[in-house]
């Protein structure tokens, strides 16, 4: 077992519990054990960076420093929003030694720069071989890999993948047997930033993402961010209302899709928590006969679809 630092952040303990559950479910198969960052706090995403610059850096800096003190060098951060805050903070602290000193003063902890946050895609990509080896039921579905904005922007700071046309998730999904479709909305805005202030607009923006995914033949949308998931899954009724259509395409965290390919049960992966039922078209023609068990198709959904 390799040990790796883990920062779940608030989402993975709340609205995105299934992300945490599915991650914890697949890790043993890859020989990885999580070490929680001790006494962690809010990363400051969503509000701090709009209000107070120093606070927005001090919050993540405190987490980074505590992790460093615990001896953590690689820290897995599944939430893309948290991940974005960590990378931004490291960038700013490295650029400006005065700022770094001020932040150290605030947190009372020295940030040494020995820690390296990993987003879920980076983490899995490094273990592609283990994921492949653990694949029992290839996930033979057309999938639209949706990256959202937080993992790739701003590109000069995030330095992750090709910012306008990332490939990491597509390659991972190919590795577990899926067929990633070529589509146009991989990094398009889902409207998450306007979730509260302008929900109607979110319905429209997220709706276009779903529309293009469906038009491109996707049977599932794969995400790596709780905010993406919330907008594409939780807001489905608003989306359908705005579009005047009923989209049923399910939205899965990459950890859930990988878990299915590993043959894990849908409860273990938290699939029952989704608002949009995780259900795939039954027939795909003789040539593409499904070898994949359809875990969600015969299970009772935890919640009923609103639309």
């Amino acid at each position, binding site marked *: 077992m390799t040990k790796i630092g883990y920062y779940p952040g608030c989402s993975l303990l709340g609205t995105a519990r299934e992300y945490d559950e599915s991650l914890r479910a697949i890790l043993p198969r890859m020989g990885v054990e999580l070490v929680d960052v001790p006494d962690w706090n809010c990363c400051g995403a969503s509000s701090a960076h709009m209000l107070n610059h120093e606070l927005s850096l001090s919050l993540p800096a405190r987490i980074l420093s505590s992790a460093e003190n615990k001896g953590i060098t690689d820290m897995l951060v599944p939430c893309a929003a948290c991940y974005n805050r960590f990378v931004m903070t490291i960038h700013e602290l490295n650029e400006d030694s005065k700022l770094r000193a001020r932040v150290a003063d605030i947190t009372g902890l020295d940030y040494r720069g020995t820690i390296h946050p990993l987003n879920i895609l980076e983490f899995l990509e490094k273990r592609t071989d283990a994921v492949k080896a653990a694949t029992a039921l290839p996930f033979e579905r057309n999938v639209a890999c949706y990256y959202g904005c937080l993992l790739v922007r701003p*590109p*000069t700071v995030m330095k992750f993948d*090709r*910012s*306008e*046309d990332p490939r990491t998730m597509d390659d991972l999904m190919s590795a577990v047997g899926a067929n990633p479709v*070529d*589509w*146009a*909305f991989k990094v*398009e805005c889902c409207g998450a930033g306007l979730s509260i202030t302008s929900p109607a607009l979110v319905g429209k923006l997220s709706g276009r993402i779903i529309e*293009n995914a469906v*038009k491109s033949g996707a049977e599932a949308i794969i995400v790596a961010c709780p905010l993406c998931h919330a907008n594409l899954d939780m807001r489905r009724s608003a989306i359908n209302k705005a579009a005047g259509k009923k989209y049923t395409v399910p939205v899965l965290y990459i950890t859930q899709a990988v878990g299915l390919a590993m043959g894990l049960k849908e409860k273990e992966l938290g699939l029952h928590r989704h608002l949009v039922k995780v259900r795939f078209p039954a027939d795909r023609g003789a040539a593409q006969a499904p070898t994949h068990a359809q875990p969600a198709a015969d299970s009772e959904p935890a919640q009923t679809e609103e639309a």
Partner: protein
Amino acid sequence: MSRIGVFICHCGENINGTVDCAKVAEAASRVPGVSHSVDYKYMCSDPGQSMIKEAIKEKKLTGVVVGACSPRMHEPTFRRACAEAGLNPYLCEMANLREHCSWVHEKSEATTRKAVDLIKSMIEKVKLNQPLQPIKVPVTRAALVLGGGIAGIQASLDIANAGHQVIMVEREPSIGGHMSQLSETFPTLDCSQCILTPRMVEVAQHPNITLHTYSELESLEGFIGNFKAKIRNKARCVDEKLCTGCGMCAQKCPTKKISSEFNAGLGMRSAIYVPFPQAVPNKPVIDKDHCTFFQKGKCKVCEKVCPTKAIRYDQEDRIIDVEVGAVVLATGFDVLGTDFFPEYGYGRYKDVINGLQFERLASASGPTLGVIKRPSDGKVPETVVFVACAGSRDPAKGIEYCSKICCMYTAKHAMLYKHKVHEGSAYVFYMDIRAGGKMYDEFVRRAIEEDDVKYVRGRVSRIYEEDGKLVVKGADTLLGHEPLEIRADLVVLATAGVASSGAEELAQKLHVSYDSHHFFAEAHPKLRPVETNTAGIFLAGACQSPRDIPETVSQASGAASKVAGLFSQEELTREPLVAVVNRTAPPLYSTCTGCGLCMPACPYQAIEMEEIRTRDGTVVKVAAKVNPGLCQGCGTCVALCRVKAIDLQGYTNEQIYAELMAL
């Protein structure tokens, strides 16, 4: 003992008005080593100069100080006068009593005292001046022109017509460059090939021009007037003397599905091919990477069908040595491919093309014979979107500069499309329209007003395919940032002009500087735009930065006239104000330690390492050596040298020190 003559000029009242010139001359006369000191109304006048000449002869002066105006004004005058009187001109110095003293201070004792200080300081410097001889460099009157596009063609013809030999090197099988690919040219819409091909033929037939196509520069050594170049003639596998250019080989070649470079990937060519019908020379080459015989060992169809038996499969690259006195760099530019733009589909949409590809679509000699058909299905597009500044002026893309030609050619493209497809709609997304140039803005206005091209001021954020159309997402910033989506059949990206592939390696071979985008750097952006920092190497055209045809041609002629000027003399005379590395008696041979740290600091790559040998050839030391042909005399190496082994003639450490210590 020095015998210095001091000559104080009144410059009418210009100096004498605030400085007591007689007093200055008197004070100078009391400085040890001064044997003659006078003041006079106008030193630069004939009588004034005669005074200096006579004093040099009569008093056998060993140095002259003229206290007058700025040396930037009259130093050549007084040095010439000294030379005429038999005194080495570099033994004459000027003290700037006018611009730096009388004109900038009030009449006072302090001003006179300053003038005395300046004179004394120069006296001490002159005492240490050494007679210097101008550097003579022989000039080989032949020019090497690298690149056979319109820049290289123009430069070659101008130099050749001035009566000098030209060696032209082009890496493609034919000369002509990008201009030969263009359909029509702005702002006149005359056919590009019609105006270019006569010039190409002229190059081929000119008695003073030696043409090496399908060739590249291997190396260049030497310095201004004395370059030695090696040129690699790549094997064409065709005996050019026997080949008549009949074209039978290309016609019968069984491998025909190779993407044509000339047609920017929109057409096909065979493995043995002439890039285009008007190619110069009209002799084919075998593309070994695609030729069945070279790949599989079998075929030889071209050999069988060649009526003159000109095919030579065993031909090898040849290296040719040439000696030239000057080099003109005219290696042109490239345009980015559509695969540079992830947000525009990373090159995977066939109907998203770049400007050069559109030129081929619009060209009567192109793959569609001038009919605008989209590449995917050959349909005539009903809606075409042109995206200006694709990559250019976009720091996020790493290209901050304006590619300069796109505004004009985009207007031309839209216009050509509208002329050919009357009922079609053309949109242009732009940031600004830059149409400075004779008849340029009028041309753009014509596209907008007469040809109804819809100009939208805004940038395109994404292009994707949906339902067989290309969805172009943008914004109209003049209409309140309204998001805009156009469903187009064809999108033309005016992709950024970038440095030609291999420009960086070439610059390093030639020791010319280049910018962060690998465009070659001019010696001075305003006053020396066609020269490089390496004396004897000149620039023409888009290898310096993207530019249009008229600008390229005028710059090529500029470079050619620089070359002709250089070739107007048998010998090049240069001021001897250059750095030298000292040589001392054994066992030191030179105080230079050979550390070589000065070499990268030299802006002209003038410093090399030299082995110092005894008479029997034993190497006793490796020390730096300055090439006087390349050194421009900045002295950066001098200040850097810890042991003071390098010194700058005319501004030696001793001279400056003495000058300073007299102040």
